[in-house]
């Protein structure tokens, strides 16, 4: 038996919420994908308000879909310029759960995501998505500060 040789990540999943942190994570992922000739998956998650109320819920969905579709346009351009194969998706639900689900579905070899700074209260009430992804993901996770 010989030792394993790391040949690079073939499928890189970027969690994208159009924030500056996510933009930084996307920059890193684009560079890595170009260097390693990897396929790039970008997933954006719309988190519905809880408990959802019908009119508000549908408004949030529509608004989120439009916002992320707009954000994806420059990402597609940049990927095209670098010759990277790109797939985008807008999911709905708990961000950490949807990111992990997408990673499992596509058998991602790496998840890249930005880290947001939250207050203690926010972390206690809602937790941190990056921490949850780190805890439950079944592939390597890169957190970009």
């Amino acid at each position, binding site marked *: 038996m010989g030792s394993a040789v*790391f040949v690079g990540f073939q499928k890189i999943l970027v969690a994208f919420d159009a924030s500056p942190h996510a933009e930084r994570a996307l920059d890193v992922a684009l560079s890595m994908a170009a260097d390693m000739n990897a396929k790039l998956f970008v997933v954006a998650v719309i988190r519905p308000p809880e*408990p*959802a109320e*019908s009119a*508000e819920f549908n*408004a949030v*969905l529509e608004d989120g879909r439009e916002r992320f579709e707009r954000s994806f346009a420059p990402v597609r351009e940049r990927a095209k310029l670098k010759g990277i194969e790109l797939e985008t998706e807008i999911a709905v639900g*708990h961000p950490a759960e949807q990111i992990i*689900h997408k990673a499992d579905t596509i058998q991602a070899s790496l998840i890249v995501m930005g880290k947001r700074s939250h207050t203690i209260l926010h972390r206690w009430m809602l937790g941190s998505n990056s921490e949850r992804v780190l805890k*439950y993901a079944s592939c390597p996770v890169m957190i970009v500060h």
Partner: protein
Amino acid sequence: MMNTWALSALWVGLALAATLLAIWFKISTALSEIVVGTVAQLVIGAFLAPGGLLGNTQWIAFLAGTGAIVLTFLAGAELDPVIFKTKWREASVIGLAGFFGPFFGCAAIAHYVLHWAMMPSWLCGVALSTTSVAVVYAVMLELGFNVTEYGKSILAACFINDLGTVIALGLIFSPFTFKTLIFVVVSIAVFAALPFLTPWFFRKYGGRVSELEAKYILFFLFAMGGLALWAGSEAVLPAYMIGMVLAGTVGKDHSLIRRLRTLTFGLLTPFYFIRAGSFVSVPAIVAAPLTLLVLFLAKSTFKAAVVYPAVRLHRYEGNSGAYYTLMMSTGLTFGTISALFGLNHQIITQAQYSYLVGTVIASAVIPTIIANSFFLPRHLLPHAQTSKKTEQSVQRPVAAEES
């Protein structure tokens, strides 16, 4: 006495604060506004002005009432007629079970256990019979099952459930006079004509800056609401029905729905939900928390007891356990509308109103808190037993073995 603009500033300021809280804590604006209304009434009433938020001021009541009517219309307009046509049989069985179970069950518990009088008990049944379509839809989208046959049935069932609530609210407390008959006949005629009249009217005169479409819809909502009140019924009943009959036409006009939402969320619903919250008596809830617990348990138990067999009846197994529980949550909109109707018509006392709104909030919030506090990566659960193996294999997902 505060002048109109100062009072407006107070209410809109509270709405702004509620929206910020909703953004920070990722909760629905409706919930945030109810809670802010309750707290503001308590604090302002105790320390600043005896009248508190002055929720019974006529113009506040008008804006709040309009908010409830338009919100109900929008909820009805979100019905998918195609799904409904294909799934109406199952949807009717499950939806009616979801309505009648908690309706009779909670009414009985209120009457025999809490010793409420007959009419308050019926109102309790109505308020706790609702189901939030959005909660179901949200979870279905989250799980990726919104396109399955089963998911569609449940979604349609929720509409039937809420329709039961709205009809019960509109008719149970109605005096059933000649006026009621006129209201029913006119309603049927209007509901039958609107799906044909509306698209023609919008095609001919719509698409202008003067927002003819919004005025047209508001006219019918107000006119039918006025007729309902004249007949001793409730204005949200025709509003929901108009929404449902226009779901296939107006409901598909995203631009119009969006403009109506701007009007609704920007101005109307904050007044509705803050006002609904301001009538909640915290001292009453603190004095008898067991009442709230009894109502919450009654609502959950009766909903589960009838929805589950109805779901099994249609031979939905496997994921059915996960799905039917989605119908357990109470809709904030219809729950509070029913309770507020009872309070306004002096069917229930302020203490009973407080228990009902408290139960509505609890049944909407508790499942959410549990889900968030004990974050379960649902998609990973089926792989739990193989997690170690998976972990090992993904350590080197692209590793090449040297021979």
